[in-house]
């Protein structure tokens, strides 16, 4: 399974990547929406589209909402699951993201279990673990 982790914070990318790697994902990171689009195009060209994108909202150059909108414009990228991972937590913001085509929405701060719960909901959790 492959995931694209998009966040302008290196720390947050590291945290999310750590959790995803722990359940078997290969990770590519991007620091803004434009870098992420480039990574998507490169992956598509290699015939290795991502299964999942974890997307921060507020980023320089191109924000997460714009990234989602642009991805959803590409029919060949429809199989990629898009999940917002952001501190934006007003009801209206979540509605906007889902309306733009995001499949799921995880509010920061989140526990590792919360991220895995979302993966399970999306049918994207390859490895199950039981530990405290």
């Amino acid at each position, binding site marked *: 399974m492959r995931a694209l982790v998009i966040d*302008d*914070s*290196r*720390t*947050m990318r*590291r*945290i999310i990547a*750590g959790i995803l790697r722990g359940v078997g994902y290969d990770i590519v990171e991007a620091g803004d929406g434009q870098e992420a689009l480039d990574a998507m195009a490169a992956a598509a060209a290699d015939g290795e589209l991502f299964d999942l994108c974890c997307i921060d909202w*507020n980023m*320089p150059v191109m924000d997460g909402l714009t990234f989602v909108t642009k991805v959803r414009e590409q029919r060949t990228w429809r199989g990629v699951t898009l999940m917002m991972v*952001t*501190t*934006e*937590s*007003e009801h209206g913001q979540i509605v906007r993201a889902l309306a733009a085509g995001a499949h799921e929405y995880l509010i*920061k*701060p*989140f*526990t*590792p*279990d*919360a991220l895995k719960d979302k993966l399970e909901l999306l049918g994207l959790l390859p490895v199950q673990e039981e530990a405290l």
Partner: protein
Amino acid sequence: MSPLDTATVADTEQILAVAQEVFAALIDDGEVLLMEAEPLGPVDDVVVAWVDMTRADSPFGIRTSVRAPREDAYAVVRALLRMTPGEEVTEDDLVDAFGEIANVVGGNLKSLLPEHAVLSLPTVATAPTMGDELIAQVGLAWRDAALTICLWTIS
């Protein structure tokens, strides 16, 4: 933002609740280990991170700062980045990770404001920051570390 708009965030209980959720979720697997404590007095070697909330149509804003003695900031960063005991905390790690704490705390406080605001990128420094007026201050204890969150109006 007029002074009235700060009421939703300049609330010690709300700030504590947000900070507890941030530490519990990102560091302690959902466990709340962050408690209210005495705010920090002046400390020699301090690390401060802050974010500013502003609106395009207003000269006013709110600054959220998180400060801790350097050793305590390191402890938070080590835990946040799941570092092994031998691993060294680089200056980059400190700036990025401690800045992210301020970012997530500030971002959650921003969501409480009655009107939509914009959050700045975090700034990290080694001297305490200030704004026009201190509108809230919360002292915190996490494991053996001491932190203080301050809210200032800025213009």
